[in-house]
């Protein structure tokens, strides 16, 4: 199994390097695309960790919002915490929220889990809209600073560097988790919960842990998003981003660490190829995603790789 770990480590380092090199040679537009790609990569990698425990959450983007608002709030007066510390705090708050949320939603499985996390995520978004006093309502919170640790906070290239470094660090963490004793048990629970608990694995704890550690990454990504955009508002928590994450995992498959990253690459390419007709992007995207899902499922890739092997 060390083989798989080495491969995953190599994958994540190559992605990180590719981002930086791409930013070095690319136009400002490409730089922007790469930064977004890096941040969404954090989202899909952390999301994959959640799926390994057997549940496909639809609250990931809303939980990302916790990270975004943490940075928006704590980097400003009266707290004035350094932005990177606020990003880390955002990860912790996201994880804490996931821990609380696991009490109701982890009782549900399969369809119920999609739906209950979907509804919980929407409830969280509503909180961001309605608790105006703290979150600024629909307008959100503007003028969020870039990390002061960067020599030139306004440089997009330097921000890309930061994203790449955080992506690699988090990627290494998730890769290590995947190969660890705990990660193996999380996957075992995802594969067969009853069998796992019959052997003495604490299924509840491991599902919760997968959800919490995955949500931590979402919080970090959210903090980076807020800092990069300079504004955090409820419209950043959109269904389209959630859809992108889930579609990346479905198309690329979650059995391997690199799967969701490949899926995301595919989706990003489509988006960029058709960017001259932006009003049609959702449609083309949707149609190609349906086609890709049908093809990848037929080819046995993606979700049900295991079932195909069994048959």
């Amino acid at each position, binding site marked *: 199994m060390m083989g798989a770990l080495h491969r995953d480590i190599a994958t994540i380092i190559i992605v990180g390097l590719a981002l930086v090199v791409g930013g070095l040679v690319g136009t400002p537009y490409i730089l922007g695309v790469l930064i977004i790609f890096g941040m969404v990569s954090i989202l899909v990698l952390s999301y994959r960790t959640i799926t390994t425990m057997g549940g*496909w959450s639809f609250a990931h983007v809303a939980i990302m919002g916790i990270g975004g608002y943490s940075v928006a709030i704590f980097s400003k007066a009266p707290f004035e915490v350094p932005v990177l510390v606020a990003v880390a705090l955002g990860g912790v708050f996201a994880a804490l929220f996931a821990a609380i949320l696991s*009490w*109701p*939603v982890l*009782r*549900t499985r*399969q*369809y*119920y889990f*999609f*739906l*209950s996390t*979907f*509804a*919980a995520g*929407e*409830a969280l978004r*509503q*909180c961001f809209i*309605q608790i105006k006093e703290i979150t600024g309502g629909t307008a959100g919170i503007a003028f969020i600073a870039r990390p002061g640790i960067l020599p030139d906070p306004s440089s997009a290239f330097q921000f890309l560097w930061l994203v790449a470094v955080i992506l690699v660090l988090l990627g290494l963490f998730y890769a290590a988790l995947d190969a660890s004793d705990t990660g193996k048990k999380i996957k075992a629970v995802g594969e067969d919960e009853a069998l796992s608990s019959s052997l003495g694995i604490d299924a509840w704890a491991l599902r919760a842990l997968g959800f919490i550690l995955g949500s931590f990454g979402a919080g970090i990504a959210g903090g980076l998003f807020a800092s990069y955009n300079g504004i955090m508002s409820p419209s950043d928590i959109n*269904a*389209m981003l959630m*859809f992108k994450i*889930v*579609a990346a995992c*479905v198309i690329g498959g979650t059995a391997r660490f690199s799967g969701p990253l490949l899926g995301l690459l595919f989706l990003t390419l489509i988006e960029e190829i058709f960017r001259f007709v932006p*009003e*049609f992007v*959702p*449609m083309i*995207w*949707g*149609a190609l*995603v*349906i086609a890709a*899902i*049908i093809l990848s*499922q*037929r080819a046995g890739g*993606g*979700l*049900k790789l295991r079932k195909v092997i069994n048959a």
Partner: protein
Amino acid sequence: MQIVLNCLSLTSFYLCFALGLALVFGVMRIINFAHGEFFMIGAYVTYFCVATLAPQIGGPSAWLVGAIVAAAVTGLLGAVLYRAVVVPLADKPLAIFISTLALSYVLQTIVVQIFGPVGLSISPPLRGVVSVGGAILPASRVMVIVAAAALSTGLWIYLMRTEPGRRIRAVAQNPRGALLQGIKTRNVGNLTLIIGSGIAGICGASMGPISQISPYMGGPALWKAFIIIIVGGIGNVWGAVAAAAIFGVLDTLMSQFGGGRFLALTSAAIMLFVLSVKPSGLFGEKE
């Protein structure tokens, strides 16, 4: 009295919308994310029919034609969805789920391209007000209540009294058993998706005239419907009825007494509470 009627009208809308979703889930264990867009398309089809036909044949008949065409169009979409997505992805519920989500973006874009992203309103087919026991209700609202009641009753009679309805129930209860009895589950699945989608279309036709229609109207409605069917117990039609009534009354009262701001939060809190206490929903059985 006014409040009671408002409750009734909201309940009937919730019910109408959630029923199709609950039916499709109950029979096929599929959650159709495009249900909200079917609803939206139903509203737009009605808008189109009313706008073009009303001058010739009058508002009410134009609306009726609109509702029928809406049901036909969304029913057809249901059939296409079944052939193109559900059949190739059989037994992969998550892949189907994501595909229907993708479909919802496709449909949204198409509607935006045809009608524009700005909200429109359908001129109410019935003007004037109806007064019931001292309360005043716009005639269009009464129409929604009547349409939803008719639809629910019609569905109930169809499921309970007709042969295809019996087959649908058999598949919902026990797919394998139904297969052994010689019921073609494929046909039943197709039929169910057509009916469920058609209901969404009619629902759009009924709701269209009393609220603004927009390409993005499907999302919030779908969210509420999810909460209703979770609280009621997924796939349980009676549970959906009860939950629709609970939220219909609760939401009306909350908006009436100034709690509208926390409506969505309250709904979600109720859902999470129900899940914590009884994960299978108030009326659901353990899977």
